[in-house]
Structure formats: structure tokens, C-alpha cells
């Protein structure tokens, strides 16, 4: 096992990894920008290093400063959390060159799966269904138009190097396709320094269902079941749930198998997630793989009893996965609401500032992952998530009751949050029934 791990992230996920290190008896070092100086979670680390000013480019995204922090604190390994450098192949390579273990997949595996076009090829080769679309990056607009005619509109344009909705555009006809291709290329170039895009048929009545994977360095690959992440607004997940409601056991088992197969095919190690779109009729299509820890991992932890971050660290240190697929027992239903410092009444505009009162819910079936507290100042520079609220129940109805109760108890004053929005959303029949798709939030917001 490592003796010291550097956590190259901030806020909630930095604390999440800190806790895993503490639980494993591993020392931890956290980096921070001056905007995060004084945050309470820094006190829980064995050491902390100020790496730069608030802008992420000069701190949490600055590879040189993070590697320098790792060097001066003599760590064995770096945990990237999610976001920032978690999917930067360049960063992983530098870690590898510096003889620091990157807690995640190898750089070559990340490069393969990080390129959406290549990942699509790998999936296709393994007979895992992909959406009808271009074989690779689109060479010319005419090629795209011709293909779109074959597979039918609407068409979704995605950045090959993309993720998080950036460089993503939807076209409903030829004219919009030509316009959107140009826009998507320039967005992709700006975001990823790579303007290649590809197109796929757009399924808009589908669910977003993803499978959690864990793999060690010795050939063992397991899945920890799936999560429904259809409750999204502008490609940002808001509520996640496991097991996915309205997905048949056949589909569940097929996508789990496909995810394991894909991870095995590329020699994946660590924690990863394979995303699928699932149709109303149970047909599924591979979308992409996220080669990192996901925000929503706690719901899987709650039902599986497996601590994903601990296992991620353990396998990175060369340990064998202590779980066998067939012996895993999943228990009940878990739901997560991402509580953001945003004002739902004002277009979800972010609402940074001082939290004057923070009373988290508790008791049975409730887990709260948060780095904030009464008196914490939400900085305006980063992600607006202030807490993850996870509710558990033996079945979906009781899990929802627990979520309702916890949302009711949760008190945050000083900044606006999405708590009132969730209180309303979970009462909506379309949500409560479990019969929703990726367009639910748009429809819900339209109907409010």
C-alpha cells in the first residue's frame, strides 16, 4: 500500500479521497488554491500545499505545480478526483514519467477510451451495439449530410475528444447540420484543442444508464451494477439512482456484461464507468466510457457495500480485488441529489457566497458527502456543488420517502441552493413513477 497520496483536487471530492485514505491508514496531502485556503477539509489532511491563485489554470489544472507539490511532499501516488486533470492523458504520462502512481488507468488505456471515436470502434469490434453514425471523425460536411440522410434526423454531433456536453450539438435538418458542424468544430477546438467531431443518431426518449466497473492489475474485472442518470439538465446530471428503474433484468445483465467485456478488451484498471443509452424497448447503445471516479459513485457504494475509492486506491497500489462478481450482494435502492449553490428560480444561476447556516440531514438511510459547514464561503471560481445527498431504502418507495424526509430536514442559508427544486421534482408523478427519460427535467421545468 502507498504510504502517502497526493490529492490533486478540491472541495467535496478532495474530502472524499481524504476519507478513503484515512480509512486505509494512508497519509494524505491535499493541494489547494488561495481561494480554498482556510477550508476545513484541509485540516483533515496530513499535509497541504498551496499551489496557486484561484484560476484553475494556475492551480488545479496546472500540471507542473501539482507535480512539484507531489515532489516536495514525497508522495507515492496522486488521486485526481473527478474533473480537473482526472481525464488528462498528458497528466497521466507525466505521472508515469515521474515515477508517481496515477490512481486511475494507464495513459495508453485512457487515450484509447478518451477518444470517443476510437472507443466507439472498440465497442463495435466487440459486438456491443453503438448508435448508427459515422465510422470515425467526419471528414467533410457532405459526408455528414449523406450519412444523416441514411440514418435519419435528429442527428447529434459530438467532439471526438469530448465530454461533459462541450462540443455537442443537435441538428434537425441538413441546413442546421451544416451550421452546427462548424459550431461544434470550433467549440471542440477551443475546449479540447482537437476539432474532430463525429455524428450519431439522436435518441431523445432514452434513459442514460451507466455501469460501474472495478478492475485490478491482475486481470480481475467486476461490475457493481448500473445507475440511472437520466435526470439531467443541459447534460449535467442532477439525480442518480441505482438500480435503474424501468430497466429489465435482461437489459441490466446485458449492459453489465458488455461493460465488463469492454473494460477487459482495453486492459482497463481502476474504477471506470461505461455509459449507455437505453431505449423504451430495452435496446441499448454504448455511448462512452468515463475513465475515472464518477460524482455519483456513492449510490453504488450504498447498495453494494463496496467502497469504490478505497478499492481504487488499493488496486492502484497493486492489490488484488477482494470481490468476486457472483458473491456480491446488492441491497435495496439508493438515490443521490447533487445539491448545488445555484438559484433554480433564476435559471440555475450560480450563487456563491457565505453559508450562514448549514444543517445536514442524518439518521437511517442517509449519507451526506460535503465539504461545507456553517460559515463556509462558496468560492465563485469552481463547480457549484456543495453537497451530495444520498438516500437509501429497501425499495424505491421507501428510498424516495427517505430522500423526501432528508430534503425537508436539509437547511442551507446564505446562498441559494437546488434543494427546493429537488423537493418539487421528486413529487412529480413522472419522476415518482420511475417512468422517465433524459428529457424529463426539460419537460418538468417547462411545466412548472
Amino acid at each position: 500500500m502507498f504510504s502517502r497520496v497526493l490529492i490533486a483536487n478540491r472541495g467535496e471530492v478532495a474530502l472524499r479521497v481524504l476519507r478513503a485514505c484515512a480509512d486505509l491508514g494512508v497519509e494524505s496531502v491535499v493541494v489547494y488554491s488561495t481561494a480554498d485556503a482556510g477550508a476545513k477539509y484541509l485540516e483533515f489532511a496530513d499535509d497541504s500545499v498551496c499551489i496557486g491563485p484561484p484560476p484553475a489554470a494556475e492551480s488545479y489544472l496546472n500540471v507542473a505545480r501539482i507535480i512539484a507539490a507531489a515532489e516536495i511532499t514525497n508522495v507515492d501516488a496522486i488521486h485526481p478526483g473527478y474533473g480537473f486533470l482526472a481525464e488528462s492523458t498528458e497528466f497521466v504520462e507525466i505521472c508515469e514519467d515521474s515515477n508517481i502512481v496515477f490512481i486511475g488507468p494507464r495513459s495508453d488505456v485512457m487515450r484509447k477510451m478518451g477518444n470517443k471515436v476510437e472507443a466507439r470502434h472498440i465497442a463495435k469490434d466487440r459486438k456491443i451495439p453503438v448508435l448508427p453514425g459515422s465510422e470515425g471523425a467526419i471528414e467533410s460536411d457532405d459526408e455528414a449530410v449523406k450519412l444523416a440522410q441514411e440514418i435519419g434526423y435528429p442527428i447529434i454531433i459530438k467532439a471526438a475528444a469530448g465530454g461533459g456536453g462541450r462540443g455537442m450539438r443537435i441538428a434537425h435538418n441538413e441546413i442546421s447540420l451544416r451550421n452546427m458542424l462548424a459550431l461544434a468544430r470550433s467549440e471542440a477546438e477551443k475546449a479540447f484543442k482537437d476539432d474532430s467531431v463525429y455524428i450519431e443518431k439522436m435518441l431523445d426518449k432514452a434513459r442514460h444508464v451507466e455501469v460501474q466497473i472495478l478492475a485490478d492489475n491482475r486481470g480481475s474485472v467486476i461490475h457493481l451494477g448500473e445507475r440511472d442518470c437520466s435526470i439531467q439538465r443541459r447534460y449535467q446530471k442532477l439525480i442518480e439512482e441505482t438500480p435503474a428503474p424501468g430497466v429489465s433484468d435482461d437489459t441490466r445483465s446485458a449492459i453489465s456484461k458488455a461493460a465488463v467485456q469492454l473494460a477487459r478488451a482495453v486492459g482497463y484498471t481502476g474504477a471506470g464507468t461505461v455509459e449507455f443509452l437505453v431505449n423504451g424497448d430495452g435496446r441499448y447503445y454504448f455511448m462512452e466510457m468515463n475513465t475515472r471516479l464518477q460524482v455519483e459513485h456513492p449510490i453504488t457504494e450504498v447498495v453494494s457495500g463496496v467502497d469504490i475509492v478505497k478499492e481504487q486506491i488499493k488496486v492502484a497500489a497493486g492489490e488484488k480485488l477482494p470481490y468476486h462478481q457472483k458473491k456480491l450482494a446488492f441491497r435495496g435502492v439508493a438515490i443521490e441529489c447533487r445539491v448545488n449553490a445555484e438559484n433554480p428560480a433564476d435559471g440555475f444561476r450560480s450563487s456563491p457566497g457565505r453559508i450562514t447556516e448549514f444543517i445536514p440531514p442524518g439518521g437511517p438511510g442517509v449519507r451526506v458527502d460535503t465539504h461545507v459547514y456553517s460559515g463556509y464561503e462558496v468560492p465563485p471560481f469552481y463547480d457549484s456543488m456543495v453537497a451530495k445527498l444520498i438516500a437509501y431504502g429497501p425499495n424505491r418507495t421507501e428510498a424516495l420517502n427517505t430522500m423526501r424526509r432528508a430534503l425537508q430536514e436539509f437547511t442551507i442559508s446564505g446562498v441559494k441552493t437546488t434543494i427546493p427544486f429537488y423537493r418539487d421534482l421528486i413529487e412529480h408523478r413522472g419522476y415518482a413513477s420511475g417512468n422517465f427519460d433524459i428529457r424529463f427535467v426539460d419537460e418538468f421545468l417547462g411545466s412548472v
Partner: protein
Amino acid sequence: MDVIEKIRRLVALMAENGLAELEVEEPELRIRLKTSISAAQQPEGGLQAQVLEEVAAEPTEGREEKPPAKAEDNLLEITSPMVGTFYRSPSDGAEPYVTTGTIVEPDTVVCIIEAMKVMNEMKAGLSGEIVEILLQNAEAVEFGQVLFLARPLEQ
């Protein structure tokens, strides 16, 4: 944070910055700290704490803190713009770039900070006389950490 721990940090902060008095008022807590003798008179410690409504804080002795800075007013700080390892001289055994008493100009190289095997020469960025070097050779530095204190030149 525990009140005692809070006081500890305040005392450490005073020591680091050569403060003579410090008063904090929070909704539920008021803390006032004052050095018993002016820090300038007794530069190497001797901090004492007086706390209203609470027990006395422990002195900072025995902690791995930077030594208390001289409480001279108007000293300028030369801070690190990066994370890395601090070196006073260009190579092992060589003369240090600066010592106390050295007069520096903005372009004077004052030290090297090594990060990712690269030696970065740091310039003073100000004019003055170096009065204190706050780090040992080969010590680690954070972003924004004070490396040198300098007295501005009288003009």
C-alpha cells in the same frame, strides 16, 4: 474548530507576522491576544496570550513553525510564485545569491526554485536590503510563501 486550537493558530499567526495585538470577534466568541513585551524588544519568541472568556493559550514553542518574523514595520516580502524546492545558491557549495545585508534590485536573482527537475531563477521584483531569509536551503516552498524580508531603501 476547538477554541484552544483556534487560539493556537492565532498565536502562530501572530508569531509569523510579528503582530503585537490581535482581536477577533465572532458571533459567539471574542478573543483578544497581546504579546507581553513588544515583539521588537524580544524578537525570538516570548509571546504570551490573554484570552477573554477562555483559558490561556499555550505558547507556540516546540511546533514546526517558521521563527517569528522581526516586528519591524514596513518590511517588504518576496514571495514564491510557484511550488517547489528552495535553493539559496546556483549549485552545491557555491555562494548563495543573497545574504542578509545584500542590496537587491527588481532584476537581482535571489534564489532558485526547483520544480519538476527545472531550476527556476527567482528575481527579487523589488528594491531593498535583505534583512531576513525565512527558509533553509533545500526546503520545500508553497505558492505565495514568503521567502525573504527586505527593508526598502531610503530614497
